[in-house]
């Protein structure tokens, strides 16, 4: 699983060679360590005049203790900082020294009402974008385009192009993401802002996140262990990404019920024993399994708060050579079983208030992939699953979202032919593969009680892969 190229380019000689030859130079991404601050370095907060999120952002920055600077203008930004109790210092790019750099640039673009005002975004980023530190963050918060008048709709939509391009321009492990926040959902941005600011979002870049849900965010969240006292079920938990998901959810405080096929029972039990969870060995495609899972959750735990449909398989063949068995196996595990399980859980009232359903899609589901018609169909179906259920779950005070991993370093990718593997690793803005924990951290963000307005999203964990972009 080791990325020898990355190790090589990070030697003194390797750095010289990659620079001279113009090869990609992946840096070692910073990743979250329990107990570490949300963001380790100064934050620059800017805003277009007339924005509505500065106050909410300032409150989050104050809550996480971020050392923050803002420009003197617009005045409302300084007022928002003052109101939030954020002792923000002043940043003036014209008077700043070269060594004034930032761990994150956060820009409230909600005030941009037409395409001419997009210049406000340029004016903020032009003198600051080269001040972004290693593994830094660029976060643009905007208004959902479709909620605005045509001129605002156009301008807010345009921010996607800006943010995605910034993601490709910033180097050294930095990321850029866009967050559309519905009017009225300002108070719901904290979990998302915490996730994007922190090293938890190490491999998430070039993404568009929508905070459009109506469900209120509960008060008094313990951000160190937001899942304290909650129960999470993770399918396919015995290894790889599923194992990492189980570990991270347990780290966040959840009791994790790991589910996997009976053949994997010893590995599954090893995982759940390590994290203080419990194991349930069954084949999720078995017709009796959905009810068995519901029974187990209701009997042992009184219900479930977080459902993670991670189990997935591949049976690659080009379509002409693919037999029905391969087709059915993949569709059953990846797409049909999650729907059956959900039906049973919701039908039995097993999903508690502020519940979470989180599915795992894939870049193949977005871009398609030769030899993976079955897999890509199932993973595109997962996107449909999110779209279809989001409004319904919102009514029940729950959310459904998906992650779409790109090239993640697992035993599966380690078995790839070297050319395919190298292409997969490098063809993204961070020039490296992600780790299972990057997917797990993203799922933990969806899972948290603070993410009650984060609904209907498919967020790629792909380092801004060129594939399907």
């Amino acid at each position, binding site marked *: 699983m080791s990325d020898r190229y990355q190790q090589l380019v990070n030697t003194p000689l390797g750095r010289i060679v990659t620079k001279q030859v113009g090869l990609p130079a992946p840096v070692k991404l910073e990743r979250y360590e329990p107990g570490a601050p949300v963001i380790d370095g100064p934050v620059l907060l800017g805003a277009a005049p007339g924005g509505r999120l500065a106050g909410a952002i300032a409150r989050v920055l104050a809550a996480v203790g971020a050392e923050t600077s803002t*420009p*003197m203008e617009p*005045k409302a930004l*300084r*007022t928002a*900082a*003052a*109101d939030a*109790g*954020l*002792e*923000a*210092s*002043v*940043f*003036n790019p*014209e*008077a*700043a*020294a*070269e060594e004034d750099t930032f761990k994150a640039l956060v820009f409230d673009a909600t005030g941009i009402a037409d395409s001419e005002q997009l210049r406000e975004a340029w004016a903020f980023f032009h003198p600051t974008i080269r001040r972004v530190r290693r593994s830094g963050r660029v976060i643009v918060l905007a208004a959902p385009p479709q909620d605005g008048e045509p001129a605002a709709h156009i301008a807010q939509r345009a921010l996607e192009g800006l943010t995605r391009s910034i993601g490709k321009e910033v180097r050294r492990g930095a990321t850029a993401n866009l967050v559309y926040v519905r009017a009225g959902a300002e108070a719901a941005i904290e979990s998302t802002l915490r996730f994007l600011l922190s090293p938890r979002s190490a491999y998430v870049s070039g993404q568009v996140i929508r905070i459009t849900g109506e469900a209120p965010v509960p008060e008094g969240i313990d951000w160190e262990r937001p899942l304290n006292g909650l129960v999470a079920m993770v399918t396919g938990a015995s290894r790889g990404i599923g194992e990492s998901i189980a570990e991270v959810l347990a780290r966040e405080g959840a009791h994790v019920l790991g589910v996997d096929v009976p053949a994997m029972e010893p590995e599954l039990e090893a995982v759940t024993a390590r994290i203080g969870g419990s194991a349930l060995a069954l084949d999720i495609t078995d017709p009796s399994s959905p009810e068995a899972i519901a029974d187990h959750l209701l009997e042992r735990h009184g219900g479930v708060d977080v459902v993670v449909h991670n189990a997935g398989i591949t049976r690659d063949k080009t379509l002409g050579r693919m037999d029905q068995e391969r087709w059915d196996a993949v569709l059953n595990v990846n797409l049909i079983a999650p729907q059956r399980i959900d039906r049973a859980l919701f039908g039995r009232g097993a999903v508690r208030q502020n519940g979470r359903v989180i599915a795992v899609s894939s870049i193949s589901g977005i871009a398609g992939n030769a030899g993976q018609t079955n897999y890509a169909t199932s993973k595109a179906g997962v996107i449909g699953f999110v779209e279809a259920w989001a409004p319904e779950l919102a009514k029940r005070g729950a959310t459904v979202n998906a992650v779409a991993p790109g090239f993640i370093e697992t035993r599966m990718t380690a078995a790839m032919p070297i050319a395919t593997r190298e292409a997969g690793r490098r063809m993204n803005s961070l020039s490296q593969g992600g780790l299972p924990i990057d997917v797990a951290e993203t799922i933990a963000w969806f899972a948290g009680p603070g993410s009650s307005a984060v609904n209907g999203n498919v967020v790629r964990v792909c380092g801004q892969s060129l594939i399907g972009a």
Partner: protein
Amino acid sequence: MTDTPRRVAVLGGIRIPFARQDGPYARASNQDMLTATLDALVERFELHGETLGEVAAGAVLKHSRDFNLTRECVLGSKLAPETPAYDVQQACGTGLEATILTANKIALGQVDCAIAGGVDTTSDAPIAINEDLREVLLEAKRAKSNAGRLKALAKIRPQQIVPEIPRNAEPRTGLSMGEHTARMAKEWGIGRREQDELAAASHRKLAAAYDEGFLDDLVMPFLGLERDQNLRPDSSLEKLAKLKPVFGGPEGTMTAGNSTPLSDGASAVLLASEEWAAQRGLPVQAYFVTAQTAAVDHVHKREGLLMAPAYAIARMLARTGLSLQDFDFYEIHEAFAAQVLCTLKAWEDPVFCRERLGLDEPLGAIDRDKLNVHGGSLGAGHPFGATGGRIVAGLAKMLHQRGQGRGLVSICAAGGLGVTAIMEAAQ
């Protein structure tokens, strides 16, 4: 006996032109300059042989022999030798603090008239002997026998010849005032251009004040100098832009052009009760209404060294019920252009006003046309103790000419001090 505070009248003030360090006043002592200034005030207000309530003045850089500087100046002046006097020392706030102290005595009826002033020379600076050498000499003095004295004196080393020269540095941080201000400029994002603009405006406005004759009765020629030596009427943004930074490192924004130079000079102001002025037929130029000092912790809390006036004025406004916009003149001592700009930004900043001043709303912006309308320290120079008197006298005349209105005085000082005051026109 008066038991209610009286209004304090500012009758007028005078100063000698300010000279640059080692310029025309290189051989003039503090006593020379302050005595000459007192005598100029005596001439103007016909105070020959008068016994005044008191004279309070001071200098920042003082020789140890000048322990009674102001009293000695009075004795050397044309005032009656029976006029009491004392020294005041509050860094760059000295001159204004002397005004506050004497004004308060007048208000309380303890005296009827007083002169407040200040002086400084950076040319005739007090150079002290090396501290190690001083200790050796004191030890020798304490010794009871010749042998003991010899033993002590044997400790003298050649390096102890190096004298102690006063430095413009903060004792507790070791940083010069310029370096402290460079930190403030960085903290407040003050650019080079706005500093140079303020400096150019200071020269331009001071030159205009001379040309218009505004300073004719405020400045008395001394030792052949008729105008402030530092004044460059042809100062321009282009010229200022060429100067190299002197504080804040190579990327710094502070230059010799937008910082005040070390200078020599003196000033004095005549204050009195209204009755005293009326008895002598002297018109009241303005009233010295109130004053406020403040200090910041630049050592541990790392507040900007020269930010104290921002605090003092906020408190004074709260006490008087005035808003920052209720003034017709703002006289902010231009120690450095950056100091003025930091102060103005701080008053406009919701974060500073909330977190540091405890105000719900920022104090707001001032009309920049009302700021230092006849120039400031960047143009005139800044002999530390003399700046307060220069400002009080100039503002009194401006208020007198206008016939109504109110003026605000703000002076920053070493040690994280701020000295501020409000004056009003006599109607």
